[in-house]
């Protein structure tokens, strides 16, 4: 199995870069027009148009301020400066701004903001950071992000367990109107029988990915399958930056975190991390004579 030294923080940097790229004018450099941000920042109010979730519309000035805060926090999160707070602020601001125009809602963006939130809560920022976070609080661990990734695949699979999808009709329609295109798509969706077979394959793979990724023994198989699936999606569907987001989150599966946690959480460190109260040292021990 491929292992990297700091999976949580490698994932943080990768996701942070996607977050910055997808929510700012940098997005216009991406090769997919669907990812381009037209206004100054993603979610910036346009033409006074309002379609807020639940009718809870915020004033334009507040939305603009949240866009700026989200961007600044995303940069700090990526660099690793006050990482937990920065990640939480970036994610919450991103979700609030997204709620102001429900037409802009995409699972891609939802996954991006929620992934950022969960990485922050998981203790990212203790390594590969400009200002590494202090070692206090609960031990860092990737289980939360891993659970989220597994749940995304599981829910995506569950949503497709229905007649219209399993008959291949949905894939055939999406191919017919150009949502799925390119030479590979033309081969994969050339007939009703192939569409049906592809539809079943997608469901089976998505439902299997969660258990395969969560079980240590099958993790490598799960990773290969997940990356392969996203590669095919990129070619036939060009689904915004969804593959990049999932790729960044899948980095959390690279590495045996249990061994690291044992090393991190030796008795002394664990005890201090609970309540983190320091006992003042006697003056005589503070600057021992050489």
């Amino acid at each position: 199995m491929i292992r990297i030294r700091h999976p949580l923080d490698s994932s943080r940097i990768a996701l942070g870069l996607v977050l910055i790229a997808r929510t700012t004018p940098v997005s216009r450099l991406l090769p997919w027009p669907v990812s381009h941000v037209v206004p100054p920042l993603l979610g910036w109010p346009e033409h006074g148009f309002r379609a807020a979730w639940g009718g809870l519309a915020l004033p334009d000035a507040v939305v603009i301020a949240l866009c700026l805060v989200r961007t600044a926090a995303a940069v700090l999160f990526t660099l690793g400066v006050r990482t937990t707070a920065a990640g939480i602020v970036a994610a919450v601001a991103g979700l609030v701004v997204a709620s102001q125009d429900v037409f802009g809602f995409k699972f891609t963006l939802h996954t991006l903001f929620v992934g950022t939130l969960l990485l922050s809560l998981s203790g990212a920022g203790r390594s590969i950071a400009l200002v590494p976070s202090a070692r206090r609080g609960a031990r860092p661990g990737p289980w939360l992000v891993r659970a989220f990734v597994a749940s995304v695949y599981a829910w995506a699979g569950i949503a497709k367990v229905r007649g219209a999808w399993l008959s291949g009709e949905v894939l055939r329609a999406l191919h017919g109107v150009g949502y799925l295109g390119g030479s590979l798509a033309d081969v994969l969706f050339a007939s009703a029988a192939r569409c049906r077979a592809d539809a079943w394959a997608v469901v089976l793979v998505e439902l299997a990915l969660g258990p395969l990724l969560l079980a240590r023994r099958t993790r490598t198989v799960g990773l290969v399958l997940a990356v392969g699936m996203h590669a095919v999606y990129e070619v036939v569907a060009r689904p915004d930056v969804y593959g990049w987001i999932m790729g960044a989150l899948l980095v959390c599966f690279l590495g045996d975190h249990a061994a690291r946690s044992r090393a991190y959480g030796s008795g002394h460190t664990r005890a201090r991390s609970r309540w983190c109260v320091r006992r003042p040292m006697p003056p005589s021990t503070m600057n021992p004579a050489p």
Partner: protein
Amino acid sequence: MLARTRGATGPSWTSVARVAAGVLVCVVVPLASWATDGRGRLAFTMYASTVTYRLEVTATDAAGRRRRVDPADLAGEVSSPAAPYLRGASGFRTVAQIDPLRAHLRDVARAGCRAFPGDVVDVVLRESPTPLRPGDLDVGPTEDESARVACPAPAR
């Protein structure tokens, strides 16, 4: 100084926050989104279904004269994420989902007030679960929803 170091029991706030966040985003939110409207809007249903729809927009002035409006003409009055829902919607088209359009038809009608001040703007959404095939003109029975907004008269 009081200190609780060794032997401290109970989870830290970060552990509690992680478990709470995990349960919320992995289970509660997706499940609730299925339960509330049966569409799973927050349950990662990406491309799991299609919908075929068209929009009919009319503006009626104070004298009762009705004008048919191409929905694409309103695309410049809404946000950039909303515009693609309007462009090309004068005829039936098949897309992955139109949940926001269905839920915010009135906001689309209100956007028409900038182009037709003082008029009454009607927006009718006709949708069919049947995918449109190339060359098809009719998609069979449709489910219709509409919204009407009386636009304020222009200030003198």
